[in-house]
């Protein structure tokens, strides 16, 4: 009878302990099962050596270690779980995420800084070239600064982030670009890409070598983009209404909207979107898997249709199948964009995926999408090389060609690993690591196009 009571008391204690452990965000329910199993084994072992069940429970819990430390170890291993949680080692309820004040201050500063060129007579509407080149240089430092402040970054990290920004500012403004050349557009685009990845160093708090940190940054990029689009939609409504109501009372607000509302709003939104991702990670987390599940099939269909249409088109004009249809100059760029979007979709769904889950139908669908993307990439590549050999090289063509080769390697590697993963021969971590290891290639290429291309092509 007394034994029965002790059992119940022990069960109750274990139940309480379990609930306490389960509150830790970094420890998933299955892990709590595992830890509970351990605790019970330990208690049984101790009881067998003569301890009472109370004593055994206490000793077993103590041997388990300090929960804060154990939870921190789990968090280090499963950082994706913490994505749902704001503060490491703290219970879900608790203090509000800090960082709102710095975010508002830095967003305000970005909005002011983007208007400083106006003091020198440059306007957002009419000096498009200047702003295209400088947008990333003017705005992204504030997002990077926000991240650095939030992470209490070390001086070395701050320097590592600041130096590329300074170099970029020098390059985009010191290069004597021809006003209507193509290198100016290439530099503008590639500087933005390179500086975004540099912002990732701030995001990772200098720990950019860690593939976990890189995956977190990829996730951050996707969420940030979604927030920016949402804010942009709201901003668009605000801008349209502003113009509408002022024109109704006979005033033209177009100048204000174009010169103040849009640039300042955009600059501020970049920082605020970053803050939103940091602070409200758990709200959007449910959207990422839905969005990827929704668009992956649609993009797969688009790519397959593209391959089929390209081949049919090529056959009908009597050229090498596919190649000719993909060799139209304007189209080449759009194909690159399609491939980049596919890659983004892939990365975004990786970041939303539970790395421990086994391969399912969605992974097979992704494999199909990857294969279709590879086919499109190869067709584009053939079209491009034939154009280059026919009309000679230009900075635009070489930049797209380079990007295409990089994408081809990336997609081929991803498809191969996805195949092995779906077939059960590789773990999902291998798939993830391939992508995270590839990020620096994009940084390198963006830097080359932005910095090396203009002088090589005479800034044309």
């Amino acid at each position, binding site marked *: 009878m007394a034994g029965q009571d002790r059992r119940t008391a022990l069960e109750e204690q274990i139940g309480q302990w379990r609930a306490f452990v389960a509150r830790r965000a970094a420890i998933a329910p299955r892990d709590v099962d595992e830890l509970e199993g*351990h605790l019970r084994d330990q208690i049984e072992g101790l009881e067998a050596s003569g301890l009472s069940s109370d004593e055994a429970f206490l000793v077993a819990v103590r041997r388990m270690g300090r929960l804060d430390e*154990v939870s921190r170890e789990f968090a280090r291993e*499963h950082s994706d779980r913490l994505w749902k949680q704001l503060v490491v080692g703290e219970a879900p309820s608790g203090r509000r995420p800090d960082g709102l004040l710095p975010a508002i201050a830095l967003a305000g500063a970005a909005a002011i800084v983007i208007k400083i060129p106006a003091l020198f007579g440059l306007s957002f509407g009419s000096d498009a070239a200047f702003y295209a080149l400088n947008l990333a240089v003017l705005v992204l430092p504030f997002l990077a600064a926000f991240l650095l402040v939030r992470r209490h970054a070390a001086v070395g990290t701050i320097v590592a982030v600041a130096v590329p920004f300074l170099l970029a500012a020098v390059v985009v403004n010191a290069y004597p670009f021809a006003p209507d050349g193509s290198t100016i557009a290439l530099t503008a685009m590639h500087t933005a890409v390179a500086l975004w990845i540099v912002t990732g160093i701030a995001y990772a708090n200098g720990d950019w070598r860690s593939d976990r940190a890189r995956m977190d940054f990829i996730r951050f990029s996707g969420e940030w983009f979604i927030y920016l689009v949402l804010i942009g939609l709201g901003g668009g409504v605000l801008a349209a209404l502003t113009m509408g109501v002022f024109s109704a009372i006979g005033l033209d607000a177009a100048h204000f909207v174009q010169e103040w509302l849009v640039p300042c709003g955009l600059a501020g939104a970049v920082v605020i979107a970053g803050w939103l991702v940091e602070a409200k990670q758990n709200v959007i987390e449910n959207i990422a898997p839905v969005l990827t599940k929704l668009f992956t099939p649609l993009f797969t269909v688009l790519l397959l249709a593209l391959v089929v249409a390209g081949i049919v088109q090529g056959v009908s004009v009597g050229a090498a199948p596919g190649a000719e249809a993909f060799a139209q100059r304007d189209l080449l760029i759009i194909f690159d964009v399609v491939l980049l979007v596919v890659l983004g979709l892939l990365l975004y769904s990786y970041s939303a995926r539970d790395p421990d889950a086994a391969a399912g139908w969605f992974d097979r669908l992704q494999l199909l999408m990857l294969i279709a993307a590879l086919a499109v990439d190869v067709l584009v590549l053939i079209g491009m090389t034939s154009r280059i050999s026919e009309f000679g090289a230009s900075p635009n063509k070489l930049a797209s060609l380079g990007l295409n080769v990089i994408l081809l390697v990336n997609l081929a590697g991803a498809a191969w690993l996805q195949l092995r993963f779906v077939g059960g021969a590789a773990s999902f971590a291998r798939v993830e690591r391939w992508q995270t290891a590839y990020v620096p290639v994009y940084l390198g290429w963006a830097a080359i196009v932005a910095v090396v291309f203009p002088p090589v092509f005479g800034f044309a």
Partner: protein
Amino acid sequence: MRIGKDLVAATATPLVLGILADGESYGYAILRRISELSDGELEWSDGMLYPLLHRLERLGHIESTWGASPGGRPRKHYRLSRSGEAVFAEQRRQWAVVSRALQQVWDDRGDTRANLALGGA
């Protein structure tokens, strides 16, 4: 004697891989085995074993399956994967070098001391 934190951390992976190289096992049994092997000298918080096991699993060195204990409770079993065997073999070579070097250094020290003692006499 209390073994330093860094040393415990450094030996954790080779120990776990080594124990799993003997065959499939689970968390509690792995810790018992480590305790046995080191006469209870090598100890760390039980909870710390699991993040380590999960890390090794993510790296593909070990594989896991959920089974049941004899009492019918769910229990997660771990075993070495094929790539884990290679990692284990490599770690074993490295540790052999380290342990040989340490042993020699201590033996030499023992010799010099003995020589000094002789010289002083």
